[in-house]
């Protein structure tokens, strides 16, 4: 790898749209367009936003014996999810775990009939691919010639249906391949904003023309990483490397829901993934600290790293903000932090901000009500 940040096929389009480009996970990505983070966020919640997420890793996992069950069971040795039970044309959320019980990455995986499509975080892709290649029964093929777009918002389905009529019938977490203008689009009805929407993989050579076709729709505005972060934060979605990492367990990250009964004690395929001896007992007993929502009183945002205290004075920090900022749809600051599990929702804690302690309420996640099309 070189030190120069990589550029997606849409780099020139972003610059032409007036984006401010920033380095992110080894890529040069648009953090905002002239509309600004706040308006981009609100536009996505009101209409439809188009995100370039081509930096994310797309990986095909194909069983060498041609039997999908082989691939599913192999993946289950790395991911504590029900891969075998995933029907063709469906997608799920899962975690790579490590031997310490921490989270190596989070990902989406889709059953595409004769192989599994994985979408992983940009900063983890290289490690994930090496990790997957420890599996003998599957071929692991990074997708290097396709970009990824996300179209998110309450009007996303109306917009996409104009270009791809079949997409309108998809349900939340469906994964399909549909044609557009002579090329195959890999479409899933999913996203990272709390809104209905789609993630669409397109051949690099046609990525810009497809993105432009979406931007030509009056409801669609280009949205940068800044609003992507505030949208996912309001939706209560954790960000790898911030709200969870190799030292945070699924229970601590409040992601135990992604580990189904079949992989837990008493289930047909219990355990058998890295860190199971740590992860499964903790899921049963409850973690001592767990990712929670925070609503500061007043308007001052509390950002990543801010210490949280139980009292207005003295004492040791009970946690630190892992993600935080202003929530444009909430109309105030929102944050997440791992805090002692016994704190009830609504409990008052204190954030130390510039030497002063400000009142913060522990709040349930998400901060907004998601509107997925189930």
């Amino acid at each position, binding site marked *: 790898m070189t030190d120069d940040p990589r550029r997606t096929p849409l780099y020139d389009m972003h610059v032409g749209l007036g984006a401010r480009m920033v380095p992110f996970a080894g890529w040069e990505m648009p953090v905002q367009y002239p509309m*600004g983070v*706040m308006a981009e966020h609100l536009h996505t919640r009101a209409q439809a936003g188009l995100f370039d997420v081509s930096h994310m890793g797309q990986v095909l996992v194909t069983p060498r014996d041609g039997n999908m069950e082989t691939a599913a069971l192999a993946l289950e040795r790395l991911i504590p999810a029900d891969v075998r039970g995933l029907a063709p044309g469906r997608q799920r959320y899962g975690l790579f775990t490590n031997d310490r019980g921490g989270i190596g990455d989070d990902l989406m995986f889709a059953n595409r009939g004769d192989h599994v499509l994985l979408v992983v975080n940009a900063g983890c892709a290289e490690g994930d691919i090496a990790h997957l290649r420890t599996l003998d029964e599957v071929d692991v093929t990074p997708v290097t010639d396709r970009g990824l777009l996300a179209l998110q918002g309450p009007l996303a389905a109306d917009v996409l249906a104009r270009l791809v009529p079949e997409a309108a019938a998809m349900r939340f977490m469906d994964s399909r391949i549909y044609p557009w203008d002579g090329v195959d689009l890999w479409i899933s009805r999913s996203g990272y904003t709390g809104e209905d929407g789609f993630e669409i993989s397109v051949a690099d050579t046609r990525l810009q023309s497809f993105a432009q076709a979406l931007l030509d729709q009056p409801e669609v505005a280009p949205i940068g990483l800044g609003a992507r972060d505030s949208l996912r934060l309001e939706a209560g979605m954790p960000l790898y490397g911030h709200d969870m990492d190799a030292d945070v367990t699924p229970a601590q990250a409040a992601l135990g829901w992604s580990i189904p009964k079949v992989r837990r004690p008493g289930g047909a395929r219990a355990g058998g993934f890295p860190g199971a001896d740590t992860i499964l007992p903790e899921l049963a007993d409850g973690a001592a600290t767990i990712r929670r929502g925070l609503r500061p009183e007043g*308007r001052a945002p509390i*950002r990543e790293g801010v210490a949280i205290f139980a009292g207005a004075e003295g004492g040791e920090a009970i946690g630190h903000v892992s993600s935080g900022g202003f929530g444009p749809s909430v109309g105030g600051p929102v944050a997440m932090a791992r805090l002692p599990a016994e704190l009830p929702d609504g409990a008052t804690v204190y954030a130390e901000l510039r030497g002063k302690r400000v009142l913060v309420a522990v709040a349930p996640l998400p901060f907004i009500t998601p509107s997925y099309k189930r």
Partner: protein
Amino acid sequence: MLKYTEDHEWLRAEGDEIVVGITAHASEQLGDVVFIELPEEGRKVEAGEEIVVIESVKAASDISAPVAGTITAVNTALADAPGSVNDDALTAWFFRIKPADQGAMDGFMDEDAYRALIG
């Protein structure tokens, strides 16, 4: 006539006081401003002392007192509508300061020099 600091503040002399805000360039760089903490009226400050906190959707930043003096007034409406800095940075003043020394406005940039600074 407006003067400018290297910290992207604009200064306007009014009588024996200076009105202070941030430039449009600074507000564009900050992005959407969501929170502003202003100093207390009557506070005596040193030149360069960080006395205002500005939080945008992206980051927190400070602005400092351009000169030593006493804060005589603050724009409390800003705290309620911090986004007005993005709407019109020139009318969204932050505070008025009564300089401790005469000639406090000397030595700051004029508009041409500030334009050269921001390119």
